[in-house]
């Protein structure tokens, strides 16, 4: 009369194993859920009962107590329905007691007994697999995603009655639905973009390339219509494809955030929140169950903030922690959630309120200063690459295509991977100041050039370190072993005081 079923619920973007205990005792017929359920979980009672009855199975006319352990953690969503339903069947001897040893159950129940999609399957299956389950039973829609976790046998449950038959061995397990394709079809844009469409802007293109290769944050300032946004959107086309580990990370996050996906996300995500986005929408949080924000959805990809100066200052300053730590911690009694947020920030801004910039600008010095103050110095400091973009020259030719730039970026990424293997960092931009000397050494000449720039521009040690990282990325893009003077000087000029 006591049954326990392993399932899992989402905690942020991670799975939390939940043991669903069902106890059936004599007493007045009733149904109680204990263990911090949210409304959706409490309502499972109606769904589970209707599903059991629709499946021509017996609903025990006694007192049913459902406990969700560990009971201190708030459980959310309807993904525990199927586990509760199966638990009731187990406890009422509709199923043999040992069929669910080493098996986890995920799924939401419909009133007719069908099993429905749960968000975050990848994270949930990952969690139960770590907890020692070798088999998971999942809704048909999530079978492909569950199969991404290595070493787990995935069983598909289409509806409760069929699941019961399969568990009893009365019928064979249904095949998982045919997978649409391995590649994630979710292209960020309707039309294919290509850097080849951008004329001129040689420096800005170089900066874009460095951002893609080295993971440097990029700020473009310039008058409207010169191609800032056009350029920034094309960053996605030259970003290196995700590695297997990164792809799993990204898929996990997106699945947990409820973004429909089939199979692995292979291309870096591109997120461009509007400037009316709230702090919670940008960095995550919100009332009740904390949700991942745009910075987390841009994990291993690009966060594009157009019109940076128009974002509320509070939201921008909230970005400082994720930019520095590449993760967001959100504290909620009694736990603190960690959302990954390792992204390349690309931002655009106008140089001044009139937007024209020099030499056509008609703004007063005071107006320009006021506009500049919207972007705090600590935020601006976190951009490794800052430059002004001007209008193209009449004679400018169409530039290099994305494919050809991407080849160079891929090679530069491979060089960084070799250099940084065995360290916790993936890109030049991530190397902390303490490890610069060891990992990104400078020749005597380049050291001189860097010292010259530091003195001429009154740079802080942090500024010099940022120039050094960018210089290394520029050298990687040139396929050069040594950082040259040209790389250092260009890196310094690509870090202007803008806007």
């Amino acid at each position: 009369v006591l049954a326990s079923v392993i399932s899992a619920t989402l905690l942020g973007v991670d799975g939390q194993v939940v043991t669903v205990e069902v106890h059936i005792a004599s007493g007045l017929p009733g149904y109680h859920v204990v263990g911090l359920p949210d409304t959706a979980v409490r309502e499972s009672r109606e769904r589970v009962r209707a599903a059991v009855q629709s499946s021509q199975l017996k609903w025990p006319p006694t007192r049913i107590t459902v406990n969700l352990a560990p009971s201190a953690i708030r459980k959310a969503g309807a993904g525990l329905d199927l586990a509760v339903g199966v638990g009731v069947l187990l406890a009422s001897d509709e199923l043999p007691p040992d069929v669910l040893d080493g098996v986890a159950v995920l799924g939401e129940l419909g009133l007719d007994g069908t099993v429905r999609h749960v968000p975050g399957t990848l994270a949930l299956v990952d969690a139960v697999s770590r907890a020692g389950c070798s088999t998971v039973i999942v809704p048909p829609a999530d079978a492909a995603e569950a199969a991404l976790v290595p070493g787990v046998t995935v069983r598909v449950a289409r509806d409760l009655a069929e699941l019961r038959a399969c568990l009893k061995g009365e019928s064979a397990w249904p095949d998982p639905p045919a997978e649409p394709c391995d590649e994630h079809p979710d292209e960020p844009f309707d039309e294919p973009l290509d850097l080849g469409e951008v004329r001129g802007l040689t420096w800005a293109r170089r900066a874009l390339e460095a951002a893609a290769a080295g993971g440097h944050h990029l700020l473009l300032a310039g008058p409207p219509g010169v191609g800032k946004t056009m350029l920034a959107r094309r960053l996605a086309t030259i970003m290196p494809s995700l590695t297997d580990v990164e792809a799993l990370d990204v898929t996990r996050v997106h699945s947990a955030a409820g973004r429909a996906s089939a199979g692995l996300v292979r291309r870096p995500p591109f997120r461009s929140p509007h400037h009316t986005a709230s702090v919670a929408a940008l960095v995550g949080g919100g009332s009740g169950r904390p949700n991942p924000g745009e910075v987390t959805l841009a994990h291993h990809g690009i966060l594009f903030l157009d019109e940076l100066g128009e974002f509320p200052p509070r939201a921008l300053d909230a970005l400082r922690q994720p930019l520095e730590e590449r993760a967001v911690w959100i504290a909620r009694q009694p736990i603190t959630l960690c959302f990954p947020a390792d992204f390349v920030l690309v931002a655009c801004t106008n140089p001044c309120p009139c937007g024209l910039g020099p030499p056509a600008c008609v703004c007063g010095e005071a107006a320009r200063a006021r506009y500049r103050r919207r972007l705090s110095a600590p935020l601006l400091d976190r951009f490794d690459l800052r430059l002004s973009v001007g209008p193209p020259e009449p004679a400018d030719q169409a530039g290099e295509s994305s494919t050809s730039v991407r080849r160079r970026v891929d090679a530069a990424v491979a060089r960084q991977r070799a250099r940084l293997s065995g360290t916790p960092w993936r890109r030049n931009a991530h190397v902390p100041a303490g490890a610069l000397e060891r990992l990104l050494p400078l020749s005597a000449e380049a050291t001189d050039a860097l010292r010259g720039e530091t003195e001429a521009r009154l740079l802080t040690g942090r500024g010099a370190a940022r120039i050094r990282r960018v210089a290394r990325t520029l050298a990687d893009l040139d396929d050069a072993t040594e950082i040259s003077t040209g790389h250092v000087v260009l890196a310094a000029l690509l870090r202007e005081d803008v806007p």
Partner: protein
Amino acid sequence: VTKERSADEVAAATLACLPRMTAARLRAVLARFEGPVGALRAIGSGCLEDEVCETSAATRRMWQAHAAAGTARRRIDERGTQVWIEGAADYPIVDAVPDLAPVLLGEGRRPEAFEAPRVAIVGTRAATPHGLADARELGGFLAAEQITVVSGLAIGIDGAAHEGALDAGGLVVGVVATGLDITYPRRHTVLYERVRANGVIVSEQAFGVGPRPGLFPVRNRIIAALADVVVVVEATMRGGARITAQYALEYGRPVLAVPGSRRNPSAAGTNALIADGAHPLVDWSDVVLAMGMTPARTRSTPDRRATPSAGGRALLDALGGESANPDQLASRTGRTPEQIAIVIVELERAGWIERAQGAVWPR
């Protein structure tokens, strides 16, 4: 270091500091009662007729109270404010200029700034790096010629002109549109102090009057009147600098304008002045000639900058004397960003160019 104040000066300052006082009213009152002392006595005893300067009864009652209180006297004593009355021997404007301020208040430790020839340097607040450099240079040049620089202490050209003159050890006069106890713009606090130490700050407004849009054009007529020559460095089409130039023409002061690129909206006003007949100022010594003096120094000092390399020359050619951003330079020279970066740094160190507002500017 203030000399003993006469009764006239105290009375004039009190009158100038009355609320709702304007230059026209002050002039009318002074004319009606034949001098400040008489005027103040008349106002204090309520004998001011309303047709003298078209005041309401309420204003006259207010004036009467203020005249009796004597706040202005205490103020000018505390602050060491100097008072100049039109027609007096030390009044800094000697020729007859229509609708001028009958009373000027000034504060500063070097009132002898008024004894030297004076040149006004005016221009836009939205100045380009070129304009700021010109204003600073011209200020320094005039200081070396023992000429007092008059300007308005505003952001942009005004501030740069004051700074250039002060840096070269010259005397300056700052004419402000607020009361003398107000510092506007606030970020010029240090500059205000420097002007007080090396010249005079002048105003016709009462203490406590804050920045009001309408007062700036009114202030500009004093700048024009105080100067022997007015130089406009950079001006937009609809800026206060053109108003100053207009007053200067009315007052018979020569107006010189620094020509600029037709692509530079901050030079549109100066170019328009030149088109209207202002003398284009290409060589700073022309200012001295325009005053009917002989420049003390010969033409500009020899260029001590290192000769640029071939790449440097190519880049200067690509700039063509105007500002350009690095993208444009890359397109014009056909060089890679690394090559251009090295040349930019070389030219910057040698003083051929400067970088500002995301662009490269030739010097």
